[in-house]
């Protein structure tokens, strides 16, 4: 299965090898630790989950099954938070990844920051369609 960024609701930037992800609807934002940035990069390059596991496990000294379990768990977390969505495009599953594996696997994790949700609860901004904007009253 391949995944893509849940665009346009989610934006992400890689800053000095640390990935910051912002969910524009929920207000939550995230950083990835461990091998998370490397896995994230492979996902966004269009590699399916099997290719990602093979790529990471193949370059790491860790147990293959452990790596596979951890990556599947991580992908589940990313999906559950609405950061990635399944796509039909698996053209890259047999392609060579654009980056070389680090060779060192550290269990990936998703660090979630929810402090902006307070702001959104108190003062949310609801984006509405132009057709949802009020009609002009005839007496004006």
């Amino acid at each position, binding site marked *: 299965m391949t995944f893509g960024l849940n665009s346009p609701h989610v*934006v992400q930037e890689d*800053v000095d090898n640390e990935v910051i992800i912002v969910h524009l609807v929920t207000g939550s934002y995230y950083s990835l630790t461990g091998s998370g940035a490397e896995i994230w990069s492979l996902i966004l390059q269009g590699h399916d989950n099997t290719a990602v596991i093979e790529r990471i496990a193949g370059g790491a000294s860790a147990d293959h099954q452990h790596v596979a379990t951890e990556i599947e768990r991580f992908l589940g977390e990313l999906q559950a938070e609405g950061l990635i969505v399944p796509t039909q495009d698996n053209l890259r599953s047999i392609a060579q990844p654009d980056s070389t594996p680090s060779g060192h696997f550290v269990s990936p994790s998703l660090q979630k920051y929810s*402090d902006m949700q307070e*702001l959104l609860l108190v003062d949310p901004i609801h984006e509405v369609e132009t057709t*949802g904007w009020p009609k*002009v009253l005839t007496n004006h």
Partner: protein
Amino acid sequence: MQSVEQASGAQNPVVPPASEPDQVWFDMAWNLFLRAEQSNRRVEAFYFRLAGQVICLRFAGPALFQAISGAFEHLACSPVNNPALTICCWDDVSTGVSTPEPEFTSHTQGTEFVDGSVRLTFEPACQLFSGYDRARQLGLLHFASVEAVPGWVWGSPAREILHWWSSGSGLQLVHAAAVGTPEGVALLIGRGGSGKSTTALACLGSSLQYLSDDYCLLSFDGEPRVHSLYGTAKADANSIARLPRLQSAFAGSTIHVQGKTVLHLAEYFPQLIREPVPLRALVVPKIVGGGECRLDPIPAAAALRALAPSTMFQLAGDRSKIFERLADLVRRIPCWQLSLGPNPDAAQPLLADLISREIPRS
């Protein structure tokens, strides 16, 4: 305070026929402003220069003049014929017009935002309407009454309109305090309550100068520069008690909103930085209670976490663009954490030294 009667620049933009619902609503509101202005028989306008461009605030009556223009007094300039942006401000009670309330979809809290051929926001709790039409360089800012002006407007009026205008002009409004010298400034970044405002206010009247305690504007041509936006300061009683240099100034202010006193700084601190200044450092304050005030380098990603969400989620529209711009910024500017002890004055020498070190040597 500068009040200009029917300045030549306060002209009415040509209104093309509207077809989209949001544009129709904008035009209706614009016509109501004109009606209110005519009934007042006097146009009051205030001009200020922001990021090299002149902006005109146009009022349908005197009631809102001080609330809105006071925050820009430090940037006041002479009238021009073709301002880059005209913001028309009015309220119903003092002008006698009746601006209709938008019919809502389902929201009763927060802000409704339309991002269409024009941009519109409406806050039902305070009946504040903001609109912006880029094609006509025209902003609309409507309140039910002067009494209904929400507290934050006194400190940062027309924030949405200035965000929309600046974002389309290659500028970026950011939620940050800024202090420094004419050679360089540090942005103090982070969510509310992180200590950035108190640290910035402590610099008033010190060797470091003050640009902002809450919002400022960035430009990105060449090296990133910081532009003063609002010449205001806000502080609650607790902060004022920790800032003895400012106590007499705050005591003289009559603007009290939501537990904070708002100060229009131009009359108390004429040495405010008004010109754009190169950005030298991004500083994330962190209140640590006891211990010494200190600066430590932090990863750029940590600075992005402090700067981007608190800016993006306070503004309507362009959030993806904001995130991209701010990510680019943190890659280019050194990032630091400022651990704050109990004495807000202790940060000044550290920040002055940091800014001095980051100034390129010729």
